[in-house]
């Protein structure tokens, strides 16, 4: 089948690629554009490892067809840090040891960034429900949630550390 030519914007820069009509955005990012920071965990939209931003909206890139991004704007993990300067979420993930194997980390950071852009001061429960579409099998989520809440506190200039102990 003839490949399709797609012009789009990725991490603020114009980009173009060829893809099969039925190819997912995830595969196009990884295989056509060599942006392998976006990970595949399931290819069915259940794990969040392939989370990207599409016109400012959080989506699993395995559930988006690559030709759909024609003329639109895609944000991936590769665009989260500004050059050598890590995004506060990336820094907090490191400080809190919020990753073990790290395969889910790009998806979590993209999703958490989307959360903080929409809700700069989430409660623990709000963070847990927003990130419920991202699976992590290593951490039990504790340190991830703490890293996200700590990032929010720092970005807001408040000092609210993550709650400890009993939820509720």
């Amino acid at each position, binding site marked *: 089948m003839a490949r399709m030519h797609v012009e789009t914007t990725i991490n603020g820069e114009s980009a173009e690629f060829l893809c*099969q009509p039925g190819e997912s955005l995830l595969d196009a990012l*990884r295989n056509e554009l*060599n*942006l*392998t*920071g976006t*990970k*595949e*965990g*399931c*290819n*069915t939209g*259940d*794990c969040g490892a392939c989370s990207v931003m599409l016109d400012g909206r959080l989506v699993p890139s395995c559930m988006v067809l690559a030709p759909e991004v024609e003329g639109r704007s895609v944000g*991936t*993990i*590769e665009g*989260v840090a500004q050059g050598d300067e*890590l995004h506060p979420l*990336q820094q907090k*993930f*490191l*400080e*809190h*040891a919020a*990753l*073990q*194997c*790290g*395969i*889910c*980390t*790009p998806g979590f*950071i993209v999703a958490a960034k989307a959360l903080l852009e929409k809700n700069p001061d989430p409660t*623990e*429960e709000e*963070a*847990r*429900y927003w*990130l*419920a579409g*991202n*699976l*992590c*099998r*290593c*951490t*039990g*989520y*504790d*340190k*991830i*949630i703490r890293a996200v809440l700590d990032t929010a506190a720092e970005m807001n200039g408040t000092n609210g550390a*993550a*709650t*400890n*102990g*009993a*939820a*509720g």
Partner: protein
Amino acid sequence: MNERKFKHIGTRPVRPDGVDKVTGRANYGADIDMPGMLHGVVLRSPYAHARIRSIDTSAAEKSPGVKAVLVGTDLPDLPRDLKGGPENHVTLADLSRNCLARETALYHGHAVAALAATSLEAAQEAVQKIVVDYEELEPVLEIDQAIAPDAPILHDHVRTAGMRGDLPDGPTNIASRIEFSRGNLEEGFADADVVVEREFSTPWAHQGYIEPHACAARVGEDGQAVLYGSSQGQFLMRDLCVGLLQLEPGKLKVVPAEIGGGFGGKTTVYNEPLVVALAKKSNRPVKMVMTREEVFRATGPTSASKMRFKMGAKRDGTITAASASIYMEAGAFPGSPAGAAAMCCFGPYTFPNFSIEAHDVLVNKLKSAAYRAPGAPMGALGTESLLDEIAREIGMDPIELRLRNAVQQGDTSTLGMPYDRIGFIETLEAAKSHPHYKAPLGPNQGRGVASGYWFNAGMQSSANISIHADGSAVVACGSPDIGGWRASMALIAAEELGIPYERVRPVVLDTDSVGYSDLTGGSRTTVVTGMAIIEAARQVIDELRARTAKMWDVELDAVGWQDGCAVGVNGAGDNEPMTLAEIAAGFSATGGPVNAEASVVPAATGPSFGTHICDLEVDKETGVSKVVRYTVVQDAGKAIHPSYVEGQMQGGASQGIGIALNEEYIYDEKGVLENPSFLDYRMPVASDLPMIDTVIVEVPNPAHPYGARGVGEIPIVPPLAAVANAMSDALGVRMTDLPLSPPRVLGALSEDV
């Protein structure tokens, strides 16, 4: 030895590989790309049990883009008694047949053929053109069916190995039986005031690593092959692949990628030997990446179990006798963790009389693989549930009951070996005095406690340290970093050498570049490969002292080592201390570069113990339950990097909670797995869990120079029982069949009415 004051050990620096992993730069198994690379796919059996009469690959071979096709008979036909892998524990003929079926397809999803083509789409299209002539056989799907006298037999050659007991001699699905005992069981039960007995069952449960298995290979003109991929051991991958393909070990180099989770599930091979064989056959690089569905259908979860436990106690809380009969589904080939369950289930206690038997049962399901403390969580479910019931019966606090029967130094393990210094009692005491244990419960909530034991692996490790001319160090090893290991590597080397953490570069190398290390598994890497780093660092220091002695023109014993500097002692105290950087600057004049390699194979590494507290809230209308508070107390011996120790505790607990409440393989009557996706195989998500409190107890391990213990596996041992005990407390009904899913909870409530 354990009085040592540490400078780096016990601190929480950022991991050296962290930036690559938060920016998406780290390369995992599926991220590799090579010029001219082909894509390999596998054809899988549509039947749970079927004889393979013939396989016709001719149409597939002619399909556009196809460069190589592989069937089981293309792999070497290995003798049944040929062993390979770590400590020669793996029956290679079975492993070969699991990678690619030969005579029989033994489970739905069993690989029967593989091919490589110029694109994934071409490969997927071509593989459908392979024609397999199957003769469908009756599948054996449950333990009771498998052990019945007239059961269809999976493997005609299998006879019950181990201690056969009363089992007949002849073809069987019971691949092995073992037993352990102590004292006199009948007298023990006769002495008891209270006797409880229950049957338990647990489901097949997958490790659930987020990264699907991925590997790639290329073969050079000289016959040298290179295998890339994520696994829990590059040397393990090499040894299994050379055994299966009958290559010389030196002909295959394995290059480790970053690994996206394993939990034991990446301690064996699936596509790895196939990708090497396809690369050889096609003379092109080949990559194979599993889909999530393939991961669920064909890579090893932990075994389902059926168990009967019995326990007797006096009213003062002394357990007088206990017995356990354990059956586990190995899947299509021998090798469930029933034996480890038997070894561990009474591990924390001083039961004077006990008897344990464990059976490894073949069924037409995928072959089980290691999963974090294999078998121990199931065994602990039996033991810890009955302890909970006895505590209620005699009106004793459940932690107090455990304290009365807890093992300590000098007591003997199930295998009859004396325990050295251990920290089990300390975990019980820490749990008892934790605020969580005294906190009031809300409506419809219950609290459960449970403990666990795991023996931890030893095995072989190597490490290499070399000193750069600027006095910084590279520490290299062959143990994959699956959860922060590089941070521990750097901490250990920094501690020994006395240089800043940032001056140590930890690297994980391929099988041609560093000495042999066994797998990252068995909670062994930080402890055992860590010992090799300590040993290598001490050799480096000895050499640095010798170089300094040369420069100062003094005897070796006049040079000491302190805080990263050579210092004059024994009469040489007038010399200004020399920093590592200063000594390194003179290497060319004093004898050349300094580096050292050390290898270790410790006789013992010391076991681990943990005690967990779980609060569960149950909606009695819907049967839905939720963990609302959870505390993990664990003896880490000495925490090298406490954040990653806590991470292991939290991650292990959440995996255990998943098995307890939701996770299970659901099969139809033909042996087809009905829930091979993350949507239907329901692992805990962030909104299912509370924060998981951790208490690290540090009772120094005499078997380790820093007192460290393995920490990775023990946290998954208590949760099944801790959750089940909390459920019983909330409902007033004992539940013994996992997972404690909403329909089961509603069923238990209606039975109780």
